[in-house]
């Protein structure tokens, strides 16, 4: 059931963003290259906030390696 839901969600996302067989050409990637479109536009603030969350919540990690541990957790 979960798998079906995931596929449906994927398909819905695809429709939403207008997936097509046409690949996005390099010269159409101007908007994608904007700094505010980065997965992490602001590494400095993001790493700070991740550190705070790491010290206050049980869950951490995901898309980065993080640094070393600290006495805060």
């Amino acid at each position, binding site marked *: 059931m979960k798998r079906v839901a995931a596929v449906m969600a994927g398909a819905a996302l695809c429709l939403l963003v207008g997936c097509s067989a046409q690949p996005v050409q390099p010269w159409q990637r101007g908007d994608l290259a904007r700094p505010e479109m980065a997965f*992490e536009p602001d590494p400095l603030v993001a790493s*700070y906030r991740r550190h705070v969350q790491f010290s206050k919540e*049980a869950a951490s990690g995901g898309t980065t390696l993080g640094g070393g*541990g600290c*006495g805060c957790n």
Partner: protein
Amino acid sequence: MDAIKAPNSVEGPHAQHGDLSVVRGAAPRANHVVEGPHAQHGDLSVVRGAAPRANHVVEGPHAQHGDPGVVRGAAPRARMSASLQALTSAALAIPGMAQAADIETDYLYSRYEEGDLPAADSASGRASERYSIDSHLFRVAGVVGAGNVAADLTVESMSGASPWWVQPGADGRPVQVMSGASIEEERVDLQLSYAQPVGVIDAVAKLGYSDEDDYQAANVGFEAQYTPPGAPYTLSAGIGYSDDRIEPTEGGSAQYPDRIRSADKNTWTSYAGASWILGPQTVVQGVFGYTRHDGYLTDPYKRAYFVASAGTVPESRPDGRQIWTLSGRLRHYLPALSAALHLDYRFFRDDWKIESHTLELAWQQRIGEAWLLSPSVRWYSQSQAFFYAPYYADFRDDGFASSDYRLSPFGAVSARLDLKRSIARHWTVGAGIEVYEASGDYAIRSVDVENPGLVDYTSLQLRVGYRFE
């Protein structure tokens, strides 16, 4: 730094911005301006800094046609289409979008303050002050040879009281006992990274050390990213290791005889994922992560309360922990609004039976050329560790016990607002605020007994950046 202003003849009008283009591989990139997907994906954040990657941006149409002559020789830019040129200049006009400078420096100050423990949740019956932290983050990033070097230094000073143990109050409701004396601590953390293309792979090596009076951690890491030629996707992976040593203050002292003197732990972290370009304005990413902790994972300062003995003992957690995460991120640009929508989700599960969901929604609004305003909201929820209880009727068979609020079931919401402004060509200034509130009510499943030590905090950031050319 003229040396790195590479193949002069190739460059058009942008050369004077200090191109750090890394030309590599058989098909050299027509230095800057819109390049493949990896430019913005994958968090090889080192490379990224305030300004995007050195080897960014274009692979114009000519690259596609595989006409090396266009890129290589002194081929005139005139062969570039007019629209690409317009795009190029537009991209370069965006602050922070210009090529990586010779050296970028950033400083961020943050003041973090936890809300008081309310009198109703306090064993003493009086409200109690909690932690406050002053953090100074310095970042220096620049180009060395064919790669990018970044150094991040964090200096933090913490003070205040923290939760010690939880015991039943008059009505059986758990109340928090705070650490007696005010804690004063300092932490210094240095992280170095070096990013360089290795063949077709964008590779990053990391090295770091964190030092506190009672805690030292040394970490190393390696990350790699690869975009097959012409592919709409980028693959990324990373692996890291941290070796930590804990030497609690007054461990084994006359005052705290049952507090350990020292212990070790180590952590392996890894992830692998892919990002896809779904359209000219949309990119998504999926990442699977696996982490393994071994060693002393207990908080040496915290204690757990047992009704049977009407007293406390040092808390105790398993000496291993495995963690699995599944993360998804979406970025969608809305040209009409000059804004980008960010949606992040993470599912987390570990073998302490903690399950967690995190959802983050951010809006990046460009205002004119100089301003960037980004409001964001975050929702977090976790279930409890299998051995957690606010307090215990009697000892568990496995000997584990922890009343740490961080292992309790709860949810949290936070709201942030960040503002950045570029000034002239070299300066960036900014400010940010975050308000965070944790509560049993925000958890995905209803929480029967909320831990009285759940934290609320406010943090304020001020920053300044300068680019040396």
